[in-house]
């Protein structure tokens, strides 16, 4: 192990690092106590305030975090960490006009930074500007071919844009390097759902729930997929696989098929109508009933 490198003498920095370590481990309460102590001595320290914003963001208090970061930037317009974090929060909150302005300003100041291009790509993706998002991600990769952030954004673009059944090269590359990365696994589950692979998506979602038992998102998804994968839902397969398009095809098939059957074999038309109508009723009524029963 290398010898310890002492930081430049600044207790505020040391505090900020320690708070950062606690926040990395989701120890918000301990981090806040330490932060309170630190801010008592260094109330205007930008790095400490940045950690305070991180603590707020961890507790889903993004508005408060944004306010803190804006204050830091007002005092120190060149504080990169605060600007970068603010960009990510604004994107998450959907404040895309402001996020874009910030991203363009940062890229102007740091034109060789692939992370900034990737961050801007993420803003564009969130703004549903798909060609521009992909172009920006590719620009980031041009600056640095292995940039992790850019690959993640590209993977997101692929999941959104690629036709069903098409693999994402970027996602595959990322998974090879980070096979247990939670964000990537989450993306994989989404891709599986979009490809209609309910069973695999359920397995993935269960794994995510084991990793995040307190996540309402994963709990709801596992519950939903558990219902959809129940054996009594097997007749719903065309609807699950092709969604509303499948519904349209079934409806058309039913109408046309029954009409033809009525002319070719009138005796069968009656029972076939009952069956078809029964299937329609089953498709609407059974899933919510099953859900209520399974989740009691």
């Amino acid at each position, binding site marked *: 192990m290398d010898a310890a490198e002492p930081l430049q003498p600044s207790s505020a920095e040391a505090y900020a690092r320690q708070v950062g370590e606690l926040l990395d481990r989701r120890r918000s309460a301990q981090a806040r106590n330490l932060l309170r102590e630190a801010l008592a001595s260094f109330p205007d320290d930008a790095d400490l305030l940045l950690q305070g914003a991180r603590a707020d963001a961890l507790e889903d208090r993004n508005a408060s975090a944004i306010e803190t970061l804006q204050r830091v930037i007002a005092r120190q317009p060149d504080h990169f960490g605060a600007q970068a974090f603010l960009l990510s929060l604004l994107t998450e909150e959907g404040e895309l*006009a402001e996020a874009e302005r910030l991203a363009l300003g940062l890229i102007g100041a740091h034109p060789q930074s692939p992370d900034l291009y990737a961050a801007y790509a993420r803003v564009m993706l969130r703004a*549903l500007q*798909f060609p521009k998002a992909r172009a920006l991600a590719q620009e980031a990769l041009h600056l640095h071919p292995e940039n992790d952030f850019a690959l993640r954004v590209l993977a997101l673009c692929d999941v959104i844009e690629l036709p069903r059944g098409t693999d994402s090269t970027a996602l595959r590359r990322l998974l090879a390097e980070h096979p247990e990365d939670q964000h990537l696994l989450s993306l994989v589950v989404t891709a599986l759902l979009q490809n209609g692979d309910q069973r695999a998506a359920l397995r993935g979602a269960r794994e995510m729930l084991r990793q995040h038992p307190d996540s309402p998102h994963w709990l709801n998804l596992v519950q939903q997929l558990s219902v959809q994968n129940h054996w009594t839902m097997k007749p719903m397969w065309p609807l699950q696989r092709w969604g509303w*398009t499948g519904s349209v095809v079934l409806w058309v098939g039913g109408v046309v098929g029954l009409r033809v059957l009525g002319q070719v074999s009138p005796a069968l038309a009656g029972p076939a109508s009952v069956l078809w109508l029964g299937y329609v009723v089953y498709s609407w009524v059974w899933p919510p009933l099953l859900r209520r029963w399974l989740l009691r």
Partner: protein
Amino acid sequence: MSRRPDLLRPTVSEPAQVARAPYSLQTGFLSAFFGGPFAAALMLGLNAWRLKRLPRDAAWALLIAAAFTAWLAFTQQTEPGLALQARLVELGGRNAMSIAARLFALLACVGTALLHRREQRSADLFGLQRPNGWGVGIALIVIGWGASHLLASALA
């Protein structure tokens, strides 16, 4: 210096330019099923407006409305059209024309779903708040059905 300076021009500089989550596919299909092709066209227009791509998609919405109007005019006012209508009724029963209209609306809806496929997927992926489809859906059904019947009566 970037190879692509065009990428560094602002795209969503005003909040009003930012796309919003579209109505769900369920709202679209149910509106089209009960409201007919005009409802489907209106739904396409409404989603295009929310997604800030109305200039691009307005033509498709107008095409759907125009195609259905042309179909009604053809089947109500021309000889070949009337003959086709009779044949369809012979094959499909009294409700053949309304079934045909419904099919047209649903196919238009499938087209809309494909046109806005990326936006719909993004809305799901990013967990964007979808607008409530009930009020709009019922309004579109009423308007679409009403417009179809009025037009059919006028052309008959």
